Structures are given as structure tokens and as C-alpha cells.
């Protein structure tokens, strides 16, 4: 099972598991071990040191054998801790699921109650409960469980609310399931891992707490002892006979630490995000491990990519997201990059300034020349000084790409001040000018807005203003209008077009919409499975696509104004980039494919103003150069 193997792969968790298994085993066999009776006093032998004759760990203030008491105490502490955790988890989860699933009034009522319980400083409530029920181990167990129920309830409720609003729950309703059945068969299986995680990370805590109550004399009552009460009794002899305290204390520490290690391992193994490594922190710049020779700069492009290769190394798999991409833009030019999802458009764009999340991203080959300077492998400080100042980005979803907690004015000011030593006032004046440049009405008051207070179109205008803040030479726009409505998209596109002409910007425009490319870009490059398959002047490529993929991609997109009709779908799916076929990546879906296409590498050849990676072009082309 993958869960166990994942757990085993985590060495710390494994250590925790082993220690825990040993402790549990010891606790289980305690009754059959040849131990002295833990509760028989023998005041003549009080405070024997550890390793004394007949008492391996010594004796306590009443001359009772510490080893025996320790093992019996451990047994008790473990049992009580686990019991409390299970009770709290089951009850808390039940309450949380009901509140989260039904929502509305039920939720309101339950969560008010939970809030009230949580308004107590934690142990205080447990103290109150023990005060009422009277000291005793069972009562301490009840108190600790009760106090933890609200935590579980709140945690599980949050998860349940998220699941109850998932579309598969709606689908289950439409398929005729009732509420109870939905809770059991749709919601619960998705909540269980969370319950297990919550439980495994709190068992240790519960053991600590019951030990705490016993330590205060409110838990187990003499002569019976759990680890906490052993510590409590030893306290008065702390200075004279520290071993009586150290023994139970260290045992608690060992148990809880093992449980915590194990709990973390369980969490890591069950949490899908941790499993996929999505919770790793991206470094300040993408890692570079160039193997092959570095190409030389050529031509008069401001930004020029030569054979760029970017990969994702996830565990033992290699995703060749970008497999040798070359393109360039001249000042004032707009290059469109078009392709389907996963074809590597974004990764190419982010590789330019080392913004690909790394790990797992690695640039493994090629070069990115900005005005002749290779940015791949440039020192971080150099890269940073170019970011936003010479090459700026506009990203897709303006709500996610602006910082939610800073005013847009402050974000613009920051963009200016990281590159220019100007006063806050000057920067603010510039920011105002930028907002006006992107045609935001009432620019002054908009500076004081937070991103969530603006509409999508406005936010994207702010995104554009931020990209323009330092008068960059190149702007890379990664699907800047995909998240917007058509009417807003039209406004943003025409704004970008105007700005480009006014400021002589070079724009790299990434999209999956041929209409947008046709309207905005001078040249277009078509990507498929991490490579460019065709490139050329927009008009020519769209009118007479030469690559079978381009032609069929254009054909399968409906265009407004042609009425109801059947579409020319491309069968099959794009290949996974960790498992690319040899030869032409499009071959499995191409109706012109021959053996030759599946053989070796097919080069991107230049034909006049166009470039093509195909053995059997769709149209007549100029002779290859």
C-alpha cells in the first residue's frame, strides 16, 4: 500500500513508529513481566538510586519499584490518551460534519456553542469539569476529551463545508441520494483522512494533558499512578532525589515525541499536497543545470531564446515542459505564442526571468539573451535588477497576482522604488500617472483601493500599470485576458495595442485564442508538447497553416458568425511531457503521419519568413534555407 510505503520512506516517522511500537508492546506485556507490585510500599527501601540491587530504576519516596510503576503508569497514560483522542475525534467530527453539511441555522447554532466552549482558556474548562466530577482518572479523561471536541468540530466543519459545496455532492443529489446517504458515502470518505491527521497530531497532546491533570493531583488517585501523577508525587523530592522525577518525565517525553513524529509522518503521507511536493518553497530564481553547449547570441532581437529547455524533476520522473524553444522579439514587435493547455507556454515565459518554481523546475539547456546578455545562469542579483525594469510580466488572474493585503497604490510604488531611488512622493506621483496611462477613471481614489475592491478588468489594468512602472523594453503577457469577460477583454486588448505603439514596447503575448492573436500580434509561434511546431507572420500562418496541428487546431475552434455546425475535432490527447513519443509529438494524432515521422528528431526548419517542424507540410513553402 502506498500509504505505508510513504510512511516508511520518511525516516523520522519510521523511527517514531518503531519507538511507539516498542512502548506499546512493553505496555501490553507489562502484566506478564516479572515485576514487583507497583503499589506495594516498602519505606525501608525508599529513594534507592537507579541500578540498585533489585530495583533497576530505583525506588520512590515510599520505596515502590520505579520500573514497575513506570511500566504500569505508561500503560495507563497511553490508554487514557488514546481513549481521549478517539472520543474527542469521533464526537467532534460528528458535530463538525453535521454543522458543515447542513449549514444555515443548524450550523449557526452548533458553532455558537463551539465558540463558547472555545472561549474558555483551554485547560480551565478541563479544570472546571474535574472540579465538578471530582478528581479521578476517568473524570480527567472525560474532561480532556470534552475540551478537545470543539477543536475537532471546528476543524472538521471547515473541511466539510468545502466538500459539501463541491459539485460531486450536487451530482449525488441529482442521482437520487438523500442527505444521510450523501453524508456517509460522499462526504465522510473525504473527511476521514483529515480526521486521522487531526487525531494523529493530537494524541500526543492529549497524553500530555491527562498527565498534566494527574500531575496536579486531579487525575489518577493514589496508590494507582500514571506518568503524570508519578511526576506530581516526585516533585517534593525533586532536589534531593531527582531520579524519581526524571524517570517518568523522560518517559512522557519519549512517548509524546514518538507519537508526534509518527503523526507528522501520517499527515505527510495522507496530505496530497505534501505528497506531490507542492508545499516546497520556490527559490528566488529557477535552478540552472545546463549540460550541453551554450548557444551564441545572434540577430538584433531585444529578447532572444535559443534552444531553451526547462524540466520539472518530480521524484524520479522528468517532465520536459519546454524542450528546446527558440524565438525572439524586436523592439515594438508583438509575438504571439499559442498552444493548448500544458504545451509549455507559461513555463517558457517564466523561464526568461528565472521565475519557474524551483524545485521542481530546472533550466537544463539553451540560453535567454537580453540585448546579447545570457540570463540563464546569471547571478541572482543581476537577474533581479532586470526583473520588472527591463522585462516585465503581466499574469493571467489579476486577483491572484496582486497582493491581497496591500493597496494597489502601494504595490505600484513598490514596483518603482525597488529599481529607482526616488522618494515615496515622487513614486506616488508616477503611480498616479501610470493608472491614468492605463485609462483607470478616478485614478487618485483608486490608488487607495485594495485589489478585492476592484472589478476584474480594473485589476488587470493595475497589472498592466505595474508592468509599465519602470518603462521596460519587453513585456511578457501570459494570457492576460483569459479570465475576463469578452467585453472587458476587448478593452484590455486595445489598451495593450495602443501602449505598445505609443511606447515602442516588445510584447510576447501568450494565449490560446486565435482571434486574439490575429488582432494583436505581428508574428505567431504555435507550441505543441513543449516545442514550437510552426512560426511565422500571423496573417500568413492563419491563412495558410503549414503544420497539420496548426491547421486542425484552427479548424476545431468555432468562430463567431458561422452558425450551427459540426466541428472538426482532433482525436486523442496531447502527449504527457514525461512520456513523449520519439519523432514528431503530434504523430499519434496526425492523419498524415508515416513511419518517417516517428523515427528521429524533426528539426524546426526556416522557409523564408516562416519556420516549420513537419515532414509533410500542408501548403507549398519556399525552399528551405
Amino acid at each position: 500500500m502506498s500509504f505505508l510505503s510513504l510512511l516508511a520512506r520518511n525516516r523520522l516517522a519510521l523511527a517514531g513508529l518503531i519507538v511507539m511500537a516498542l512502548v506499546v508492546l512493553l505496555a501490553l506485556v507489562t502484566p506478564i513481566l516479572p515485576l514487583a507490585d507497583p503499589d506495594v510500599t516498602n519505606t525501608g527501601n525508599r529513594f534507592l538510586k537507579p541500578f540498585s540491587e533489585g530495583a533497576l530504576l530505583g525506588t520512590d519516596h515510599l520505596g515502590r519499584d520505579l520500573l514497575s510503576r513506570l511500566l504500569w503508569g505508561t500503560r495507563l497514560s497511553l490508554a487514557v490518551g488514546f481513549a481521549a483522542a478517539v472520543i474527542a475525534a469521533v464526537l467532534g467530527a460528528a458535530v463538525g460534519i453535521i454543522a458543515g453539511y447542513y449549514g444555515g441555522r443548524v450550523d449557526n447554532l452548533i458553532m455558537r456553542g463551539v465558540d463558547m466552549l472555545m472561549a474558555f482558556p483551554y485547560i480551565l474548562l478541563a479544570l472546571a469539569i474535574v472540579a465538578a466530577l471530582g478528581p479521578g482518572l476517568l473524570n480527567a479523561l472525560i474532561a480532556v476529551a470534552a475540551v478537545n471536541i470543539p477543536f475537532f468540530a471546528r476543524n472538521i466543519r471547515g473541511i466539510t463545508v468545502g466538500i459539501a459545496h463541491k459539485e460531486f455532492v450536487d451530482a449525488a443529489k441529482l442521482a437520487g441520494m438523500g442527505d444521510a446517504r450523501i453524508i456517509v458515502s460522499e462526504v465522510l470518505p473525504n473527511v476521514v483522512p483529515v480526521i486521522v491527521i487531526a487525531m494523529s497530531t493530537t494524541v500526543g497532546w492529549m497524553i500530555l494533558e491527562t498527565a498534566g491533570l494527574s500531575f496536579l493531583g486531579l487525575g489518577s488517585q493514589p496508590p494507582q499512578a500514571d506518568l503524570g501523577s508519578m511526576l506530581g508525587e516526585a516533585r517534593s523530592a525533586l532536589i534531593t532525589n531527582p531520579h524519581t522525577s526524571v524517570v517518568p518525565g523522560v518517559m512522557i517525553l519519549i512517548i509524546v515525541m514518538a507519537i508526534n513524529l509518527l503523526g507528522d509522518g501520517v499527515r505527510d503521507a495522507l496530505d496530497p499536497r505534501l505528497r506531490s511536493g507542492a508545499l516546497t518553497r520556490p527559490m528566488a530564481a529557477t535552478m540552472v543545470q545546463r549540460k550541453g553547449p551554450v548557444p551564441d547570441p545572434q540577430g538584433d532581437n531585444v529578447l532572444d531564446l535559443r534552444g531553451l529547455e526547462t524540466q520539472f524533476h518530480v521524484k524520479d520522473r522528468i517532465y520536459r515542459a519546454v524542450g528546446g524553444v527558440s524565438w525572439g522579439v524586436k523592439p515594438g514587435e508583438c509575438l504571439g505564442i499559442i498552444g493548448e493547455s500544458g504545451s509549455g507556454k507559461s513555463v517558457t515565459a517564466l523561464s526568461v526571468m528565472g521565475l519557474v518554481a524551483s524545485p521542481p523546475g530546472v533550466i537544463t539547456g539553451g540560453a535567454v539573451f537580453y540585448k546579447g546578455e545570457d540570463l540563464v545562469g546569471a547571478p541572482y542579483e543581476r537577474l533581479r535588477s532586470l526583473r520588472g525594469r527591463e522585462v516585465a510580466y503581466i499574469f493571467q488572474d489579476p486577483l491572484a497576482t496582486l497582493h491581497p493585503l496591500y493597496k494597489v497604490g502601494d504595490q505600484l510604488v513598490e514596483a518603482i522604488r525597488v529599481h529607482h531611488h526616488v522618494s515615496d512622493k515622487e513614486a506616488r506621483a508616477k503611480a498616479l500617472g501610470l493608472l491614468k496611462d492605463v485609462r483607470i477613471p478616478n485614478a487618485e481614489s483608486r490608488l487607495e483601493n485594495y485589489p478585492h475592491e476592484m472589478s476584474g478588468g480594473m485589476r488587470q489594468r493595475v497589472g498592466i500599470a505595474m508592468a509599465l512602472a519602470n518603462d521596460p523594453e519587453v513585456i511578457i503577457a501570459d494570457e492576460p485576458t483569459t479570465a475576463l469577460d469578452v467585453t472587458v477583454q476587448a478593452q484590455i486588448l486595445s489598451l495593450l495595442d495602443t501602449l505598445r505603439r505609443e511606447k515602442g514596447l516588445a510584447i510576447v503575448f501568450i494565449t490560446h485564442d486565435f482571434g486574439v492573436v490575429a488582432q494583436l500580434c505581428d508574428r505567431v509561434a504555435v507550441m505543441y508538447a513543449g516545442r514550437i511546431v510552426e512560426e511565422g507572420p500571423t496573417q500568413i500562418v492563419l491563412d495558410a497553416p503549414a503544420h497539420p496541428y496548426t491547421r486542425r487546431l484552427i479548424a476545431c475552434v468555432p468562430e463567431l458568425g458561422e452558425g450551427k455546425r459540426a466541428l472538426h475535432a482532433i482525436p486523442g490527447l496531447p502527449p504527457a511531457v514525461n512520456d513523449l513519443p520519439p519523432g514528431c509529438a503530434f504523430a499519434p494524432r496526425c492523419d498524415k503521419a508515416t513511419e518517417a515521422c516517428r523515427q528521429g528528431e524533426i528539426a524546426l526548419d526556416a522557409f523564408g519568413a516562416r519556420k516549420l517542424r513537419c515532414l509533410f507540410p500542408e501548403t507549398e513553402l519556399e525552399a528551405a534555407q
Partner: protein
Amino acid sequence: MSIALKLDALSKTFVVGKQLFGPPKGRVHAVHPVTLEVPEGETLGIVGESGCGKSTLARMLVGLLEPSGGSIEIAGKPLDNADPAVFGKRIQYVFQDPISSLNPRKTVRQIMEVPLKRLHGMDKAQRDRRISEIFAQVNLREEFLDRYPHEFSGGQAQRIGIARALAAEAKILILDEPVSALDVSVQAQVLNLLAELKQRLGLTYLFISHDLAVVEAVSDRVAVLYFGSVVEIGRAEDVFANPRHPYTKLLADSAPVVGRPLTAPEGRETELPDPLNPPKGCAFRARCPYAGERCGEEVPRLEGETQLAACFHPLR
């Protein structure tokens, strides 16, 4: 031809900012009274920008949301306050996000079995037979049945979603942005599959999308939604080619089309009206170049012969 689906003044109002004491802070009229008839075998397209009430309308139709007013009739029978299981056999829903509409912890077979068991009470053998049948219809291999949803691409997952809807044997499918999450090459596959199924099984579709070109390509008639109201409805080939409502025209002009120069049809940056404080009169007035005095006073009603528009100064 008989009427498959009839909506009479169907509306939805959300109460926002509920307080423990005192009146709620406001009401959002997500769907203004909508009256529509969908004949059997038709595909009615519904377009509109984000937040115009498309999904709210769709969720009311399948009983996932309680309407605030009006009624729904399916094949002449009213469907008021029926429970979802009854809805389920008459009308089904295909969700926008193919992956999240499948329970990640169930196999495809378990997912497929639910409607067969709950709605049609089939036994194991019948279910297996029916599942094979449906899978053949949607071009899915049966070996997929024992896999979990995360192992599928978006297009495959969407086919499973469609298969599940078919299993209920409802004659009406509400398709809520069924291809928006898919890639263009896969999108065409799914659209063609939907067209084929409709032919073969005699289904009626309500096809909701924000993509004008897709809606035009699959629909017989198209309804344009703006701010919770139908502002224009007519034959698919006419609505965008010869719009009557100024908003429809704006939409059509904004869509990027190969061969048309880039223009911003709207000069200024405009925004949707505030749903908590809806404007008096026509909701489109602030953006409308043809607005007259009457537009600020009265709410225009849908009028016309085959192509109806809710506008006092229609373009045709």
C-alpha cells in the same frame, strides 16, 4: 412539436447580509422573472458574462436551488417543490468542472451506479449491462470503470460526467459550461459527442456558456442574459449576426474574430451595475449608446416575432 421545458416567471432573489436581529442588509435579484419555452429536441443556448445569473438559473432548473418565484414545467407537468430524486429522472445536469464533479474517493463504476440504483432501482446485472451500454455511447472504454477520477484528463472526466447524466435517462440535459474547462481540441470532441447523443437519444439541451462562438455553433436558439434578465432571444444564426439588443451587439463586436481589426467597441471602462442597488429602468442604460429618456423610467419587456429583444430602441 411539444414543449419539453417551460419556465414561467421563474426568479431567484438572494438575501445577503443576514443579521441575527433586524432586517437583512439587502437582496440580490440574481434572476429576474424569466419566461421561456424549450421545444422537445431543441438546443437552447444561454450566453452571458460572469455574474449574469446563468448558473443560478441552471441550478434552479434541476432543483439544487429553490426558486423565489415562478414555476417550472417539464413535458406539461409542474415540478414545484419536488425532491431532487424526482427531478433527477426528468432533468439532469452536466457540471462545468469535470474533475470536481466526480467524488475523488469513488471509482467510476461506483459513481455510475448511483443513479441506476437510486433512480431506477436496478439490480447488479441490469446495472452492469446499462453501464456498458452508456459507456459505448460516450466512447469510453470499460476498463476505465475501476479507476479513480484523478486518473483522467479533463475531456475524459467530462465524458464520465455526461455518462452519469445519461444514466438517469432524463430527456433534458442542462449543460452548464460543459467545455469551458477543456482544451480547444478536446472541446470539439465533447461538443460533437453531445450533438451525436442528442440526435440518437432525442434529448433536449440547455447549453450555457460564456463563449459566443461555441454557443452559436451548437444551438438552435440563443438567449442572451444580462444582469439576471433575458435581453434577447432568437435563432442562433441571427442573434449575433443581426443583433437587435444593443448589449448583444456589444458582445458580438467584442469577441475577437480572425480578420477583424482590433477595436474597443466601448470607449470607456464600464462596469456592471451594483446588484444591491440596481438602477431604475433598463439595466444596460449606463453602457448603452442608444439610451433615451424612457430607458431610465421603465424596464423594457421582451418583444418581437422570432427574435425578441427587451429594448425600447432595438437595432432592427
